[in-house]
C-alpha cells in the first residue's frame, strides 16, 4: 500500500502503542489476581454496605460499589478508575500531537508544502487517532475476557465489549477535543492541559452530582455521566448515551478542520 499521512502516523505510533499495551496487560493481570480474595468476602461486603450512598456513587460505576462481584469489581477498579485515566491519557496525547505536535517540531511546514489539503491532513490524523484508541480498546477487551473467565468474574463478553465501547467513545471525545485545540492553536501543551483539565472537571462534576441536589441537572453536561450512569457491565450498551458521546466527539472533529484551514502555520 502506498504511504499516506494515515499509514505513516500509524507506523510512528506503533512504538508507543506497544508500551500502552504492556501497561494495560500489567494492570489487568494485577486486578485479575486480586479479585479472588475479594470475591465472596462477607466482611468487605458489610463494610461497603455501611458506606454512605454518595461515597459509593463517587467511587463506583453506575452508582454501585459492589466490589465483591465481578461486574462491580471491574466497574469500580477498571472502568471508573484506571481505564479512563489510561485511555484518556493515550487519546489526549495522540490528539494533541496530531497537528500541534508536528507543528511544534517544525515538520508540519514541509508536510503541508506537499499537495495535500489541510483538511485531508487533519482527517487522516483523526483517523489514526481513532485507530489507535480502538486498537487499545480491543486489547483491553480481549484481556478482560480472559481474566474474567480465569478469575471467575462472570461478566459476559458482550457486556465487556459494550463497556469498552463506551470507554473508547469517551476517550475519543477528549482525544478529538485535544486535536481540535491543537489544530486551532498549534500549541501542544495547551491542547493537553485544557483537555485534561476539562476531563477532570467533567469527572468531578459527575461524581459530585449525587452529593448536592443543585448539581443534579448539571451532571447532564458531563460526558462522564453518559459514560458511566447506565452500568453497561450489567445491562449492555445504552444507545442514547453512546450517541451523546459520539455526537460531542463529532462536533470537535468537525470544528477542527475548519479552524485549522483558516489560520497561519507557525514556524517552530
Amino acid at each position, binding site marked *: 500500500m*502506498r*504511504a*499516506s*499521512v494515515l499509514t*505513516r502516523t500509524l507506523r*510512528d505510533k506503533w512504538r508507543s502503542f506497544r508500551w500502552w499495551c504492556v501497561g494495560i496487560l500489567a494492570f489487568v493481570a494485577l486486578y485479575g489476581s486480586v479479585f479472588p480474595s475479594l470475591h465472596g468476602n462477607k466482611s468487605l461486603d458489610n463494610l461497603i454496605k455501611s458506606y454512605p450512598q454518595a461515597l459509593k456513587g463517587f467511587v463506583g460505576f453506575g452508582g454501585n460499589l459492589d466490589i465483591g462481584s465481578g461486574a462491580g469489581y471491574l466497574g469500580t477498579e477498571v472502568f471508573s478508575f484506571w481505564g479512563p485515566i489510561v485511555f484518556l491519557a493515550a487519546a489526549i496525547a495522540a490528539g494533541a500531537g496530531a497537528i500541534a505536535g508536528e507543528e511544534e*517540531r*517544525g*515538520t508540519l*511546514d*514541509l*508536510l*503541508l*508544502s*506537499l*499537495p*495535500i*489539503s489541510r483538511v485531508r491532513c487533519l482527517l487522516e490524523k483523526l483517523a489514526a487517532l481513532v485507530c489507535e484508541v480502538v486498537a487499545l480498546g480491543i486489547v483491553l477487551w480481549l484481556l478482560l475476557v480472559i481474566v474474567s473467565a480465569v478469575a471467575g468474574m462472570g461478566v459476559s463478553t458482550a457486556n465487556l465489549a459494550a463497556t469498552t465501547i463506551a470507554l473508547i467513545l469517551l476517550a475519543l471525545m477528549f482525544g478529538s477535543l485535544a486535536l481540535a485545540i491543537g489544530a486551532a492553536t498549534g500549541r501542544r501543551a495547551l491542547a493537553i492541559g485544557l483537555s485534561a483539565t476539562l476531563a477532570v472537571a467533567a469527572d468531578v462534576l459527575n461524581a459530585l452530582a449525587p452529593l448536592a441536589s443543585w448539581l443534579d441537572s448539571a451532571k447532564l453536561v458531563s460526558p462522564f455521566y453518559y459514560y458511566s450512569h447506565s452500568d453497561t457491565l450489567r445491562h449492555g450498551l445504552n444507545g442514547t448515551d453512546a450517541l451523546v458521546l459520539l455526537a460531542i466527539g463529532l462536533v470537535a472533529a468537525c470544528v477542527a478542520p475548519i479552524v485549522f484551514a483558516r*489560520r*497561519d*502555520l507557525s*514556524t*517552530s
Partner: protein
Amino acid sequence: MTAVIRAEGLTKFYGASRGISGLSLVVEPGEVFGFLGPNGAGKTTTIRLMLDLIRPTAGLLEVFGLDVRKQSVAVRSRAGYLPGDLHLYERLTPREYLRYVAALRGLEGLGEGEALSERFELELDRPIKALSKGNRQKVGLVQAFLHRPDLLLLDEPTAGLDPLVQQTFNELLREVVAEGRTVFLSSHILSEVQRLADRVAIIREGSLELVEAVETLRARAFVHVEATFAQSPPQEAFASLPGVRELERRGPVVLLALEGSADPLIKALARYEVLALDSHEADLEDVFLTLYREGSAGAS
C-alpha cells in the same frame, strides 16, 4: 506566456508586526530569481505565502496563474520547497522520508530521489537524527527536487553545504533552468547567487528595494586598484580624478576604487614611482553592501 509568480501589493502582517508590505514582482518561466535581503527582511514570509502556509493580509499572489489561496494544492503539486528552517522526521531514514514525500506526491518509489541522492552522495539508510547539518540539508534539497517541479522555492538553500556540494547544487540548478523550469532562491549573500541568478530583487524591511538583472548590477561594479609606491604620494594626489575614490592608505600602499575609464588614473599614477600594481573587479558583494548602506542611510 504567463508569469510563474505574480505578486501585486502583497502584504503580510503578523498581528501588528510587519512581515512584508506592498510587495510587487513578476517571475518569468525559466529564470533563476535571486531574492536577497538582510535578516528579518521578509524573504521567508514571501516564500511561505506562495505555499499557502500563511495567509496574506492584503494584495494578490498568483503562482502558475493560480490563486495561491483557492488552488493551493494545485500550486503545491507543481512546486518544490526547501524551508529556511529545516525540520525533518528524526526517527526516519532519508530513504523512508523520501519515500513518504514521493508517495504524497503520487510517485512510485523515491521518484528522482535515488538519482539525486547519489549525486549529492547522501547516505539513504542512516537515521536522520544521526546526520550532520549539511547532510540534512541534502535531504531537504532532494525532497524539493524529487518530483521534477516546475518551480523551486528555495529558502537559503546553501546553508551548511560545503563548497563541493554547493557546486553540485549549482549544476543541478543550471540543468533545471535549461529545462525551462523556474527557481526562486532567497539568500543573504549576493555572491552566492550572482553566478546562478538572472535577476535579483533586494528586499529591506518588508519592501522591495530594487529588482535588477544581474548583468545590470555587474555594470555598476567598480574595479579595485592597489598601488604600492616607492614613496607615499601626497594625500590629495588622486582625490580629484573623475571616477576614482581613495579607499584606504597603508604607508606607501594605496587602495583605490575605479569606475569608468582607467585613463585619468593611469596618467596620475605615472607621476610617481610605482613598485607594484594590482587590480581586480570588485565583487558584486561590494555593490550589494553599498546598496544596503544607501538603503539604510535613506531610511534613517
